[in-house]
């Protein structure tokens, strides 16, 4: 029980928050919100894991032990760097008399103030929006959805956790096999095995029960950030937007191919995270980048786009391509609309991880 609590706290609490603090240094002071920091930290965790997992997996067939130790050490170091960076920044801000930073009491006070400032109508709409998200989380926890692909992806996690072997066992049978690089380069099943190792929870429970409870609210956090950019934070339309999004997700099961079907029926699979979380993060970040009214530098958001692209490669073999395609098209449109060639250069720089990954796929796959 203690391992579950401590492992869960480390992976879904300390790491996202502290590595998020490391990233927040690249942003304007007034734009540091707890949601931004958590989202950034979570993506950094995924991207860092992908960068460690691929070489370990290629070099060491029995590398789960090494992968767990390396990933934990690097994530812990990043957390420490985040805390130090944040502490230094706070001290500098105090010396300069500015205080736009984040603190637990500050977040609590800000939320309470925002809640009191809302109209009753707005509060009721927020209750409906939160209830709709709560229903999706409860259904993901209490109901099982059958998907044939679990016999591959979830079993890869179970194998890595239980045997320590990285992608060299055929999931369907248990016979030994060569490294299937095309599937293996998308290291999400290994991250799920890592979560299982760190928490002591069976990998199938991690995938089917634990991760939906993390990924569903995280995806809605993205929708919230997008909604804020579209409608403004204090607008009564924001909870209406959030509720409509929930309805579109719950009633979006019109075929087996839609983002919504993947979101609520295969939440734990890389394809689902790609079709939902990763692409939504891109939309949110691009709305931030191209916002003329944004205070502070856009550098942090461009950096996070790179991180998001690495995380995209972790989700599915086509993840890097899809993310680069969306980013490339948006960058091209923005460069033409704003008549700024520099946007194209920045977009191209963000896509470097995708190009490297796709080259690896072509050469090794």
């Amino acid at each position, binding site marked *: 029980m203690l391992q579950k609590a401590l492992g869960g706290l480390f992976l879904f609490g300390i790491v996202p928050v502290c590595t998020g603090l490391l990233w927040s240094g690249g942003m304007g002071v007034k734009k540091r919100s707890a949601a931004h920091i958590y989202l950034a930290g979570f993506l950094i965790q995924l991207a860092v894991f992908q960068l460690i997992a691929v070489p370990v997996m290629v070099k060491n067939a029995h590398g789960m032990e090494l992968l767990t130790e390396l990933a934990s050490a690097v994530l812990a170091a990043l957390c420490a760097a985040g805390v130090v960076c944040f502490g230094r920044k706070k001290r500098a801000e105090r010396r300069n008399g500015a205080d736009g930073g984040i603190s637990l009491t500050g977040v609590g006070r800000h939320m309470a103030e925002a809640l009191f400032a809302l109209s009753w*109508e707005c509060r009721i*709409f927020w209750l409906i929006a939160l209830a709709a998200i709560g229903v999706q989380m409860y259904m993901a926890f*209490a*109901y*099982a959805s059958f*998907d044939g692909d*679990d*016999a591959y992806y979830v*079993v890869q996690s*179970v*194998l890595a956790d239980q045997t320590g072997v990285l992608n060299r*066992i055929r*999931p*369907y*049978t*248990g016979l030994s096999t060569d490294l299937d690089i095309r599937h293996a380069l998308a290291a999400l099943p290994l991250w799920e095995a890592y979560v299982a190792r760190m928490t002591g929870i*069976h990998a*199938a429970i991690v995938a*089917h*029960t634990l991760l939906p409870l993390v990924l569903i609210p995280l995806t809605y956090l993205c*929708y919230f950030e*997008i909604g804020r950019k579209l*409608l403004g934070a204090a607008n009564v339309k924001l909870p*209406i*937007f959030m*509720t*409509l999004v929930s*309805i*579109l*997700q*719950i*009633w*979006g*099961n*019109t*075929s*087996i*191919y*839609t*983002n*919504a079907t993947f979101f609520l*029926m295969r939440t734990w699979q890389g*394809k689902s995270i790609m*079709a939902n979380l990763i*692409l939504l993060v891109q*939309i949110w970040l*691009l*709305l931030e980048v*191209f916002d*003329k009214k944004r205070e502070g530098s856009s550098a942090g958001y461009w950096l996070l786009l790179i991180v998001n692209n690495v995380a995209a490669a972790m989700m599915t073999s*086509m993840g890097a*391509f*899809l993310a680069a*395609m*969306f980013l490339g*098209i*948006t960058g091209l*449109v923005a460069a033409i*609309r*704003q008549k700024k060639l520099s946007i194209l250069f920045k977009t191209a720089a963000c896509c470097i991880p995708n190009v490297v990954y796709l080259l690896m796929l072509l050469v090794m796959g």
Partner: protein
Amino acid sequence: MLDILTIFKQYCGSGFYPFLFLAALIYLLATEKDRKIRIVLLDTSLVIAVLFFFPLFKKVMDILDEGTYYRILWLLPMTVVIAYAGVKLIGRHNRIGFAALALVLILTGQCVYQNINISRAQNRFHIPNAVIALCNEMMPAEDEERVWAVFPDELIHFVRQYSSEIQMPYGREMLEAGWEWNWDTHPIYRVMREAPIDLEELVPLLTEYNVQYLVLNRSVPVEGDLQECGLIKLTAIEGYELYRNPAVEIFKKEPD
């Protein structure tokens, strides 16, 4: 082009959300003034939609990854665009507007929780209890090697999600008719998929493939006598019976 239309129709399935998205996109293209929204949500969507229906683009995509062309439609931010257009459309009429929009979305969609593949979870693994109980029955001891078992079709997907200690001579690859390179090729599966299951044919194959355990669905008839064929019944769990094939021993692990 016909191919692309078929993929689009399959993506739409029984709902109208892609058409609502199209309507929302046209509405926002006509009314939206904010440049960042136009760039990220509208112009980009328009380019992606045009690309999707462009046959040459599909040819290139098929070279990269055949069979996943529908994923280009994931890049269209349908949910965000429909919801945003909705809240803009209702103007100040928040309550009645929200109710009307919600009704339209519910009536034009399909509830995921009515999907036949969703059922109340029997445990936190989200794996049938019968699979867990059967696997626990045949789980090798610490000093024993992994065991081999044959399961009925409906349990095959779940077994190795529970334990890597249970191995199977064939798995999901036998069940997917679309995977022509694998489907229906394993000799044991050829016997297991028949009703009745011919034990005279099955048991020698189990021995040949070193399978120690056999799970049979009680509702599927068998031809021949289980005991005469040498199988020993260990237990019955829910609608399944677990048999031991004593012709194949359970091997001990070699000391390190």
